């Protein structure tokens, strides 16, 4: 049966994906920092779905630990989901390098570091799927969150390059741009209902994309059009907008 490694497994999207893969009988590695929550979740998955599920400590920021972390995953994963990220605070990040760097690390540097290892391994094995959870915020930089957005833009480009490189080895790369998602992070924010997806929806779309070898997906179709419009506004006009 399939083995799935989820990096950043305590987000709601990651948990929904873990449940859906467990329902299909996959072995699940839950990687992240929140040991208490993820150990509990691994027990829950094993009890509810009768599968093997394990917590593995993983810190995206600590790039030096990535090689030994990945070596420790056995059996080797058929699917790797890169779900970690950090929204951060744009206003703080503009003045504070630590916050700014944290955003870049968590959304770009850390992801590149671990996925390099995964990619090399899958390339030699000539099989595997990598799913990267990026963001619509990476489609165009806006004043309200361009530090996060630019890190995600970097990640989106990285994934597309990786897809291009690994195609000939039969390894598939999926880029997911969820848009607004109703999660514990956004709880309390007023999100526009038609543009807001449920974590379960995001998970099933991305699993479907992995199965069907789709390359880049938005979760709700509206987002494709919203982002198309946002991307097509000429820069001369765009710079004057309050976005």
């Amino acid at each position, binding site marked *: 049966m399939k083995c799935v490694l989820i990096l950043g497994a305590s987000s709601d999207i990651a948990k929904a994906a873990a449940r859906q893969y467990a329902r299909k009988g996959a072995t699940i590695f839950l990687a992240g920092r*929140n040991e208490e929550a993820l150990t*509990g979740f691994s*027990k829950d998955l094993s*009890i509810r779905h009768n599968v093997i599920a394990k917590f593995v400590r993983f810190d995206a920021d600590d790039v030096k630990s990535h090689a030994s972390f990945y070596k420790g995953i056995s059996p080797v994963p058929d699917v790797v989901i890169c779900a970690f990220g950090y929204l951060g605070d744009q206003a703080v990040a503009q003045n504070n390098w630590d916050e700014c760097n944290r955003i870049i690390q968590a959304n770009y540097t850390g992801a590149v570091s671990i996925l390099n290892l995964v990619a090399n391994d899958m390339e030699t094995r000539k099989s595997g799927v990598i799913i990267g959870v990026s963001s619509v915020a990476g489609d165009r930089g806006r004043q309200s969150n361009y530090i996060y957005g630019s890190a995600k833009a970097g990640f989106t480009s990285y994934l597309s390059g990786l897809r291009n490189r690994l195609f000939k080895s039969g390894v598939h790369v999926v880029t997911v741009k969820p848009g607004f998602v109703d999660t*514990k992070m956004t709880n*309390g*924010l007023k999100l526009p209902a038609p543009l807001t997806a449920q974590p379960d929806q995001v998970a099933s779309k991305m699993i479907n994309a992995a199965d069907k070898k789709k390359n880049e997906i938005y979760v709700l179709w509206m987002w494709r059009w919203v982002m198309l419009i946002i991307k097509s506004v000429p820069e001369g006009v765009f710079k004057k907008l309050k976005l």
Partner: protein
Amino acid sequence: MRSKKDITNWGKYPVAEANEFVFDSETNLKKIIESSPSSPFIARGAGRCYGDASLGENIVSTLHYTNILEFDPVRGEIFCEAGVTLEELIEVILPKGYFLPVTPGTKFITVGGAVASDIHGKNHHKEGSFSAHIIYMEIYAADGKIYRASRTENVDLFEATCGGMGLTGIILRVKFGLKKVESAYIKQITARARNLDEIFDLFEEHRSCTYSMSWIDCFQKGSKLGRSIMYAGEHATLEDLDTKKKKNPLYVPAKRKLTVPFNLPSITLNPLSIRAFNFLYYNKSPKNRHVGLVDYDTFFYPLDAILHWNRMYGKSGFVQYQFVLPLDVSKKGLTEILTRINKRNMGSFLAVLKLFGKQDDLISFPMEGYTLALDFAVRKGLFEFLDELDKVVMDLGGRIYLSKDARMKSDFFWKSYPKINQFAETIRKYNPSSTFASEQSARLQLTNHYHKK
């Protein structure tokens, strides 16, 4: 950034403007509680209590704290986080030959809610309330510590948490015993009662039956007062099943659910439509005693088949009035209350009668006697009418179920729960500065430092 939301429970009355917090670990919970030490918090599960018990300015939702941590199919024990719902548990335990030891009339509640209300089911007269099956639980108290509580460890905390409506702290994890079953079916007896005397006789006759409850038509008067249908049941054994069901005894095929898509105009449920419904319902039931096989969903959760049925009562919502009367005065009290309902044409669409067995816990609702639950749409004059009923209940030594309450006056509450002083004392011990308080606890003057801004 964080904005308040309007939150209501099942009765859609009252509405609270609240901050909602979620947690997925003890560490996160501690951060939330310690981030604003001045304002009170209240735990909230699935919001299936009817009134304001899980409402307050700062709501700590358990709906992201939902791991099942242990399931021992040999001993029949489960250990889980408080936000797991009964529906989810059934999915895990029934295929392994177990059922819940006690279940309310809906499976859409959480384990935390089951403990905090010390819920009762149709088997109370034989198997007690939920707390009778708890092995131990872990509670996050106001001092930031986690206490393990059971009938032998931190006993005062255990007793005040069962039925304590979230006022001792946040229930984190619960271990409890399950019931072994051979099938997902119930052998059901249906019997008609023409009046109150007959239904009391039926309850007595079925005392040895594991499950029993009856539905009363509140519009009947005189010699027909208390006309009702009794449903009694036992878990079906393999022998009770036909060959087809025997092949897959622990599995019930999924059924389609109906949804009430929006709040219906409040006129939908009027005395006339309720009378018509009651007439049809009574007359479609078998005239003579009938024994049949139904699946567990149909037997325990008939209302869950209609999602959002609470929207039938319209925008202003409804309250459920559930009281219990001591056994020796039950008939007298029910006659009095049903007569008053009739006189005022206040008939309730759902009216459920049950017989409780003995229970003598600190703050739990059940006591030996009959309990009746009635639904009333919120409208002018209702609360005055319910105050009148409170008086009848109080004079007979009965009380009201906190989990359904949205309007009871505090002096009635303090007079009707005999061990209330001891309960209040334990709350003061574990929750001295009202770190945990709800709109209900403020109304009932159980917590004193509730700051309404």
